[in-house]
């Protein structure tokens, strides 16, 4: 299916994509190391390195391995998950604006979290939260699909986005009513979650999230040829012999699972799904073999950077990571927009 007549071009593109991914990975490593040293307890860089190699004090080891490391790993996973989710959604809906936040998938997750907080205000919900949010995201996506699909024509890209926006508005309205019923303490918790605070910060969450993200990323990469074809448009894809509807449904499911899992642990972080793929596309072009891994890396870099700043800017208070993501992501996105022809 690939137009690889110009071998020289393809070769050049592969080299460029690999270089880009290496550079982004190195940047992630650098932020990773700086991030290990960011937080209420200060450590000299030397101490961090010594501790990493098992030479540090027990207290340093506890801080690094039990508090900071899981959070950083989670941040990377969330960033990759949300960005690849946005990447898939943009390909399937042919809409550069698609992202899990805009389609209402994040709101669906939020609604379930609020309902839970409302009905079980005294239960420590940190453990149940990821599952609930994922459940909400899944329900929302199924609702969008049911309302957007037509028997004969299947899914039209515009209809998915239109229906998604309508569902998001309905859920936001419902959330508004429910938020008013919450008492101030629970309200504060929900508001912080909705603003995108990393919720899960210990190894349990890493273990819960890791198989999802890795598995789904690998699957998306395996489907990158299909994404290439789908992004050409439905008619062209059908005439090229792709079973368009089935593949779309499958890939939408993958996008929702990625977003749901990430939002569950990370709070309602928006903008990564929008900015990550756009940045990646600018760097490596539109072939999904490169675009999927590059999106994962740029998304991870964006969130890990934002999380570091979130911990660092207003020490000892913490800003929700989602807010920092938007503050970094939006101007960059606008810069892209102004330059874009």
């Amino acid at each position: 299916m690939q137009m690889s007549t110009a071998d020289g071009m393809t070769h050049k593109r592969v080299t460029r994509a690999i270089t880009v991914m290496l550079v982004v990975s190195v940047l992630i490593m650098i932020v990773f190391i700086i991030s290990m040293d960011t937080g209420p307890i200060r450590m000299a860089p030397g101490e961090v390195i010594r501790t990493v190699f098992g030479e540090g004090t027990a207290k340093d080891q506890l801080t690094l391995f039990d508090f900071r490391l899981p959070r950083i790993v989670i941040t990377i996973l969330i960033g990759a998950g949300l960005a690849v989710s946005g990447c898939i959604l943009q390909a399937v809906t042919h809409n550069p604006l698609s992202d899990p936040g805009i389609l209402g998938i994040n709101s669906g997750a939020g609604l379930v979290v609020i309902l839970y907080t409302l009905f079980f205000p005294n239960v420590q919900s940190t453990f149940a939260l990821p599952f609930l949010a994922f459940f909400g995201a899944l329900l929302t996506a199924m609702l969008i699909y049911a309302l957007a699909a037509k028997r004969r024509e299947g899914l039209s890209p515009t209809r998915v986005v239109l229906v998604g926006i309508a569902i998001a508005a309905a859920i936001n309205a419902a959330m508004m009513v429910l938020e008013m019923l919450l008492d101030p303490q629970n309200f504060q918790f929900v508001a912080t979650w909705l603003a995108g605070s990393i919720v899960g910060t210990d190894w349990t969450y890493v273990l819960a999230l890791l198989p999802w993200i890795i598995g789904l990323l690998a699957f998306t990469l395996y489907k990158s040829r299909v994404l290439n074809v789908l992004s050409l448009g439905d008619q062209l894809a059908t005439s090229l012999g792709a079973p368009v509807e089935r593949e779309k449904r499958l890939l939408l499911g993958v996008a929702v699972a990625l977003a749901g899992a990430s939002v569950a642990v990370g709070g309602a972080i928006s903008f990564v799904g929008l900015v990550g793929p756009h940045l990646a596309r600018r760097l490596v072009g539109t072939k999904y073999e490169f675009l999927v891994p590059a999106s994962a890396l740029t998304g991870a870099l964006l969130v890990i950077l934002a999380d570091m700043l979130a911990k660092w800017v207003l020490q000892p208070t913490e800003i929700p990571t989602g807010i920092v993501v938007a503050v970094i992501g939006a101007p960059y996105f606008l810069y892209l927009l102004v330059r874009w022809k």
Partner: protein
Amino acid sequence: MNDSAKVINNQPQAVSRPLIAMLVLVGGLVVLVVSFAVSISVGADMIPLSTVWGAVFHFHAQETQDQVIHYLRLPRAVAGVFVGAALAVAGALMQGMTRNPLADPGLLGINGGSEFMLALSFALFPKLSFAYLLLLSFAGAGIGAVLVYGLGALSRGGLTAVRLTLAGAAISALLVALSQGIALYGGLSQDLTYWLAGGMSGTNWVQVEWLIPCVIVGLIGAMVVSKSVTVLSLGEEVATALGQRTNMVKLVCTCLVLILAGASVTIAGPIGFVGLVVPHIARYFVGVDYRLIIPCAAVLGSLLIVLSDIGARMIHPPYEVPLGAVIALVGVPFFLYLARRDRRGL
């Protein structure tokens, strides 16, 4: 595209329906007057219509019910009429101008800008008087719109619909994130959420006196540019070929949207869906001519808000359901129906 082609061939009868437009206008106004009266009479204290009549035309300052009507119900109902008309017309202008069926005032960064300024003033000057709050929120709406519009215009290749939508989404997200940050940091998020939920419950005459002139100016302006908007809605190339100065029209439209939406958002909060749904309904009835769409949208928008405001008070008395939620209850199913229809004329 078929519809547009007909208009170009000087056969607008096929797609613009002046007769139906008249019916919608007259019928809508009659229903509006009735709902306006009902809206004054219902609430925690049910007041018979005869008393309402008396209170409006022969006001006795010592009667409790007269006071309720004069100071609470009447400004609220009047504000509903003007807010509804303003939001619907702002949405119609935006949809015609950007040729984007999803365009609504929230898109231009107006809601985001208002929210940001409001969060900022809650945090920095918690005891600000209402008039200043309104002014600040209005200024915020302006900043949001100027940012979105400016970025769209600065871009290589000019101000296209996609670019405007993308810029709007990004700026709104940024402003909302900043306001959330300020609100969370200052522990004010519940105050902000109350305002964001939208509603007419606190409306008083001072606010209405601000609102009315803004909306009237905006509506007259919208009627003046309506013909140009119709041409613009056929597409930029057609409009240019017909000799229209498209950027000028867009600039004027943006200013009108800012006046209309800014004024209503400062009073009622960012009420979604009116600007999105009502123009679609109006187009469904009267076709693609904005000279007909705009007045019909104004009447239908007023009607939607006044009826929803009655609903907000009646659903769960004596408490009020947020107006934004009631409108979503009506707007979402209708919007879903539109989304599932095959052709969405613009």
